[in-house]
């Protein structure tokens, strides 16, 4: 369905060659280095990568909430519903934030104001973004019920809520204005698995109901498998592999993606040793030339250390930024035969 949409019209969210840098003292942190994405309405894209890979920076660029000091979008375009977000004025942006685009942050414990009633915090967002026809308090109560919290608890304060309930309030705030795009940044990482399952289910349901597009930022492959339609594997501010969930999970192609899957302890297997990816992610102030993964890649050759490695389309919509795909495939096949 997504593919058809691409042909008919430009997708709801389109990021082209986004480059973001942070400047500190005497260094430049290359946080995002040429990321391009497309996302249609009602679809979910998973951004997967390690700490510091630039996932959160991408989301914050869409919202235009990067810190004023030091952070700078130095290249690229972000189109939201056909409009270039990066060219909008701050006033126009304020209308978009919370209304068209909402973000759920990682830490539910700090996202709420401790001295304001939970319900008022939801109502405030409604008040900011709607005309007078909507009664903010009524809408806030409605939202509480939707996320599974009795409306009577409108008048309580955040400390009276458990972690899972706080995160549900955060979700209620994010969804109160029926956003078209939801950015969930590690939204369930701080929660216990049984609560995480509840919250993910809830987000999924609401997303279906309102046909919301969602970018899910996570490092948990399990959640991606459960929730996402498309997946982008991010490493050192670049997308290394991009495709539908089936393409990525069934046919991981980039050595990094393969390594990531290999490093997860299997729930069924009895292997003695895990297969970690050797080494560490590169220093974002001093990225290696060529493929950023090449210093850790067991297949790396001289070719990989030259700049300008582009995407290779391996299948319809499945892209992989690696110049040795064919050789690696062959080598893997030989390994398997042995």
């Amino acid at each position: 369905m997504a593919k058809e949409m691409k042909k008919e019209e430009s997708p709801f969210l389109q990021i082209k060659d986004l480059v973001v840098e942070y400047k500190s003292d005497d260094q430049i942190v290359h946080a995002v280095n040429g990321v391009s994405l497309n996302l249609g309405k009602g679809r979910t894209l998973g951004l997967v990568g390690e700490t510091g890979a630039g996932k959160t920076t991408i989301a914050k660029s869409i919202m235009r909430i990067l810190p004023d000091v030091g952070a700078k979008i130095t290249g690229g375009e972000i189109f939201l519903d056909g409009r270039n977000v990066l060219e909008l004025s701050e006033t126009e942006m304020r209308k978009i934030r919370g209304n068209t685009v909402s973000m759920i942050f990682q830490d539910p414990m700090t996202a709420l104001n401790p001295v304001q009633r939970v319900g008022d915090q939801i109502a405030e967002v409604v008040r900011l973004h709607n005309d007078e026809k909507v009664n903010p308090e009524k809408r806030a109560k409605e939202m509480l019920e939707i996320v599974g919290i009795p409306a009577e608890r409108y008048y309580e304060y955040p400390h009276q809520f458990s972690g899972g309930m706080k995160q549900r309030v955060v979700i209620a705030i994010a969804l109160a204005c029926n956003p078209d795009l939801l950015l969930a940044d590690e939204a369930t990482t701080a929660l216990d698995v049984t609560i995480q399952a509840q919250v993910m289910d809830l987000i999924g349901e609401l997303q279906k109901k309102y046909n919301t597009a969602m970018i899910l930022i996570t490092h948990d492959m399990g959640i991606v498998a459960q929730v996402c339609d498309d997946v982008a594997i991010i490493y050192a501010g670049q997308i290394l592999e991009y495709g539908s969930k089936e393409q990525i999970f069934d046919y991981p192609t980039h050595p990094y993606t393969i390594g990531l899957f290999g490093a997860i302890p299997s729930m069924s297997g009895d292997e003695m040793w895990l297969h970690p990816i050797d080494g560490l992610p590169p220093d974002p102030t001093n990225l290696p030339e060529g493929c950023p993964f090449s210093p850790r890649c067991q297949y790396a050759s001289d070719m990989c250390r030259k700049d300008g490695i582009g995407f290779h389309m391996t299948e319809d919509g499945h892209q992989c930024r690696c110049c040795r795909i064919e050789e690696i495939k062959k080598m893997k096949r030989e390994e398997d035969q042995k």
Partner: protein
Amino acid sequence: MASVTMTKTASPKVKRQSEFARVMKQLSKNKIAMAGLVILIIECLLAALAPLIMPYGYAEMDLTQTFATPSLTHLFGCDDMGRDIFSRVLYGGRFSISIGILAVLISVVIGMIIGALAGYFGGMTDNILMRFLDIVQAIPGMLLMIVISAVLGPGFVNTIIALSVSNIPGMARMLRAQMMKERDNEYIEAAQSINCSKMRIIVSHLLPNCLSPIIVQATMGVAQTITMAASLSFIGLGVQPPAPEWGAMLSAARSFIRQAPHLVIFPGLAIAITVLALNLLGDGLRDALDPKLKN
């Protein structure tokens, strides 16, 4: 077994520098704080070298020059007894600055001991120590100082004692709060599990991590103490004449404020500049010591 061999990939360049060098580097970026530091260093040098620089002795009277206005022979003019104010201000820096620094130093040391014990052990120890401090704090600071000075009698050493006692509760409370926060970190549990003694945990782990706010507070405290010493002298309880402590000079000059304002202006300026410089430095230190601004 290949999977367990550790690779030695070239890691990002690990820059190391001592804590002191890091703080100085951060501080050097803050122009205003640096200005404060420079002023202070100059002041300390002037006070230390005062006997060499002073054109006249601080108690040297020249009755022909009473109330002389500033001129080339007497840069800041002369006071009611014909003493050169420039010399007196220079020499007075020795009293004012050393009272400030010594009093704060004493209160930091005692406050730290009390705060560390209360903060680390908590419970009964904490209760007893804190209630004791409550009693001290319940007496208004100025009153407390007056009482102590009155009991001990005026003088340089006694002024320092009076000033440090009134500073102790603040220091102790601050360190206690800091200790209680640091105490919950896992590295303290780790120290316990490798059998570190309580003394070692406090001295070697907790104190170094609690020091930054104390350093800032102490810097500002010196400024405050100099003003308090001035107030004590002003009411005649501090350093006694003819010693030219800045506050004492102010106090002595107050009756002539209308006829000869320069008697008040110059020692007043000296206090104001010192206090300002210390406050600027304290502000800068607060930023430089904040670990969140690291790198």
